[in-house]
């Protein structure tokens, strides 16, 4: 499949028991875009990304990635970075690289080793001996070493220092192919604003804004960060 719209959400709704995590999301994202999924904690960002990955079952509605429901095909074209530690602790960085190379045809081992070297991480180190920040870097390297059509990054810069944040953002900018889309969720907006093409605001499970960054700056005359603070003021 190679439709023009990479992500299509139609009436996507998710309830956890009685709690509404996402309400009737209608969203279309094209190819070659860097999209920021922004909102305060509990607004439904992770829920949306997990639904796109098929890790949650929608209560109503559906999501399609490149025209298909989440499944084997979408997993092969989507590179996902969860916000939690999800890799086997006992494995070494080199073993994890082998693991990803085994399952994903689009995985570039050479790139992965280069990034490990750039971040001063030894491939022979086991994950359990690494600090939290280093583990997150390894996870990011594995995700960004794939030549995927869609990168879904859930809070990729949350737990790392500012220098690493810059490295991650540069990696995202320089490593994805022209036709690939990157969607990253975060609440650290001022840091990532410079890389974004489009932003989506989520508030209490509802989509309240979906515009390009240029439009926001031109029509509203303010930065995305300023607009966010205004919209989500407590």
């Amino acid at each position, binding site marked *: 499949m190679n439709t023009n719209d990479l992500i299509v959400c139609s009436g996507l709704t998710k309830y956890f028991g009685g709690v509404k995590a996402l309400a009737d999301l209608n969203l279309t994202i094209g190819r070659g875009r860097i999209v920021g999924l922004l909102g305060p904690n509990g607004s439904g960002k992770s829920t949306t990304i997990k639904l796109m990955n*098929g890790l949650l079952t929608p209560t109503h509605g559906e999501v399609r990635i490149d025209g298909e429901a989440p499944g084997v*095909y979408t*997993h092969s074209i989507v590179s996902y970075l969860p916000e939690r530690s*999800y890799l086997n602790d006992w494995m070494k960085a080199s073993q994890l690289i082998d693991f990803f190379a085994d*399952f994903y045809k689009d995985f570039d081992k050479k790139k992965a080793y280069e990034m490990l070297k750039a971040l001063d991480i030894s491939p022979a180190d086991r994950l359990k001996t690494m600090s939290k920040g280093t583990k997150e870097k390894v996870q990011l390297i594995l995700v960004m070493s794939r030549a995927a059509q869609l990168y879904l990054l859930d809070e990729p810069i949350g737990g790392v220092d500012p220098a690493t944040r810059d490295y991650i953002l540069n990696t995202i900018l320089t490593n994805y192919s022209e036709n690939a889309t990157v969607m990253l969720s975060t609440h650290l907006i001022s840091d990532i604003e410079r890389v974004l093409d489009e932003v989506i605001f989520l508030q209490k499970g509802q989509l309240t804004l979906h515009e390009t960054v240029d439009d926001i700056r031109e029509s509203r005359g303010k930065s995305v960060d300023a607009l966010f603070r205004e919209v989500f003021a407590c």
Partner: protein
Amino acid sequence: MLRKLFKYEWRATSRVLLPLYGSVLVMAIINRLFATINMHMLESATAGGLSFGLPQVIAGFVYGGLIIASFIVTFVLLIQRFYKSLLGDEGYLMFTLPVTVTQHIWVKTFVAAIMCVLSGVATLLSVFILAFNGQNWLSLLKVFPEALQMMFKEPHLLGYTVEGVVWCVAGMLASILSVYLCIAIGHLAKRHRVAAAVGAYFGLSVVGQVVMFLVITFADATGFDFWFANMAPVAAMHAGMLLLIVLTAASGALFFFFTRLILTRRLNLE
């Protein structure tokens, strides 16, 4: 994909279990050594010869403990491999691989089955190491060709053996799948998922008993058992074995079907 998945599942499981089974064998050898040394010392020395008494007792306890541990750890680890690997944090990795849920379930089931067999083999082997001397080994080795000869004379015996083995394998796979189904049912609960899984286990046992009762009542009511009774004993035996195999395989298939259904239609990793 199946082979690659199997490779990783095997690696993750064997790194814990194989050393444990190996240590059972090592302890058996150590115990055997102590027993042999002690025997020689008793024969050669006057009174005394107790110098290896205490270590031998300790070695005996350790050996016994390791056997029990190997079964318990196998059981616990195989549950853990399904629960944590698919429905815990690692599920974020597993369920986003370009692999079907069917492949996940099969690979875990097969590795679990192989480990169950290996734990039994390790225990049996350790008992042989401990208890058998040269003569026993020779007579044991004679048993196999004798058994084979008997089977070729009486082909039905071979048939029963094959059917028995198939039934055991089917039963083992069905048991493992039933545990996986309980864990999957537990996953459906919003909270207290472990308690829900345990509850599902008891529920499933009750359902199994009810089904057995219904099957027997049905057999009684339709005269199915008379058909059995009127058959030649050999044919009845085969028919009985085949029926057992079919029922066991069917229950295994049902467990697999519902486990897969839950993990594809009702997955909610939090």
